[in-house]
């Protein structure tokens, strides 16, 4: 049975503009989100992930109006993350025409099961993505880390992910913070380790720099591969140029 693996551009929003970071730092301006998403739509991207990086940190709500404008010309599946702290915010986001919402900060609160339950009951598990940011410590062991890189969580990653899945999460977006923007490939063994331990699709993010990187991550068990820099930079000096081609479809 042939499986079509998804290749997903990720856009990071900061103050309503698209940026790209390296290891979550040094944001570089990419462009206007409406135009950027429009280009990915025209290029027939499998799906798109839009992550607003500052909303949760500033304890604000998402910019609904901006999202509405982004989505009006978007005929591909959209996953949005950023500032989703309760069911009311989720409802507003889904009503705009988003398929999936990605939750991160709210998962690391004590009452994380409530929000997953609330969303799953109304919208179904396929609509909830858990974004897990992981970073290696000095001894090379992964831990889950907060958005601002300040809080390290002492959680067993597999147990935590499986508790999210049991509660109703339908997809895992695993982000390798150390690989963010480095464009040198992903941690393949860790992809295999996670993929073999979970029952829902795994999307791996962070580190993609080439078609070979994408193929390897898929071979090691990622259900879909997501990337930022790979789709927005071009050439040795990282000039901004939006491109998209799913090489996985052509084989």
């Amino acid at each position, binding site marked *: 049975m042939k499986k*079509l693996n998804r290749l997903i551009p990720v856009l990071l929003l900061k103050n309503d503009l698209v940026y790209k970071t390296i290891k979550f730092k040094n944001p570089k301006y990419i462009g206007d989100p409406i135009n950027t998403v429009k280009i990915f739509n025209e290029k027939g991207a499998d799906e798109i992930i839009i992550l607003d990086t500052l909303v949760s940190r500033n304890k604000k709500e998402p910019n609904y109006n901006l999202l509405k404008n982004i989505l009006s010309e978007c005929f591909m599946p959209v996953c949005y993350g950023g500032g989703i702290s309760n069911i009311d915010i989720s409802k507003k986001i889904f009503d705009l025409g988003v398929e999936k919402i990605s939750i991160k900060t709210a998962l690391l609160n004590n009452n994380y099961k409530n929000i997953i339950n609330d969303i799953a009951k109304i*919208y179904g598990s396929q609509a909830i993505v858990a974004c897990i940011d992981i970073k290696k410590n000095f001894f090379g062991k992964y831990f889950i880390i907060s958005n601002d890189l300040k809080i390290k969580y002492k959680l067993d990653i597999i147990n935590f992910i499986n508790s999210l899945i049991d509660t109703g999460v339908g997809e895992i977006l695993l982000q390798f913070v150390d690989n963010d923007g480095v464009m040198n490939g992903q941690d393949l063994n860790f992809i295999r380790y996670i993929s073999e331990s979970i029952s829902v699709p795994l999307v791996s993010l962070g580190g993609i720099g080439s078609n070979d990187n994408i193929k390897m991550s898929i071979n090691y068990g990622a259900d879909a591969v997501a990337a930022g820099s790979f789709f927005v930079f071009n050439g040795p000096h990282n000039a901004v140029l939006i491109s998209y081609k799913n090489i996985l479809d052509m084989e």
Partner: protein
Amino acid sequence: MKIAIINQKGNIRSIVNMLLKCGAESYITDNPDDIIKVDKVILPGVGSFDYAMNFLKKKKLDIALNEFVSNKNNILLGICLGMQILFEGSEEGIENGLGLVKGKIVKFQSENINFKIPHMGWNFVEKTSSKSLFNLKNQRYYFAHSYYANLDNQDNISYQTEYINKFPSIVENNNIIGFQFHPEKSHNFGKQILNQFVNL
């Protein structure tokens, strides 16, 4: 002629936009009286079976949709969960479905670690009935579901898709149609099939 879209949860806005690209006007409603005025109704939906059915019952849309399809010139299209609630029931919940197509919604069972649930992503459709109203070749669509339809009458399956097992991706029972995938999120492939629907 305008198309009515039932105001279920989900990508309603995307359906309106895609229909506009196909040259069709549509409006979103949860008022049973509005359904009588049109000859095409789209029943969208993401989410859980019981939540969707309870919503339809509360708004008396279940009765309205039954009356709507009793006129054979009218066409009802269910999308994703909207297709699943056309059936009699689901393993996902305890509520009865609309019962417009005979069969039950069942959950995928995967024993292969490479095939995760939900079935999330793009997949092809393969024609299984020559009577289908749709003519699709090498088309692929976006799927996002953990459950699929198990039909009593295999003749009602017009296209099938393979993921873990073969399952119906398009069902047709006379003037009742169901798409398991999301045409409104399937780029030009989705536009083409909605175009065919608009011109039925």
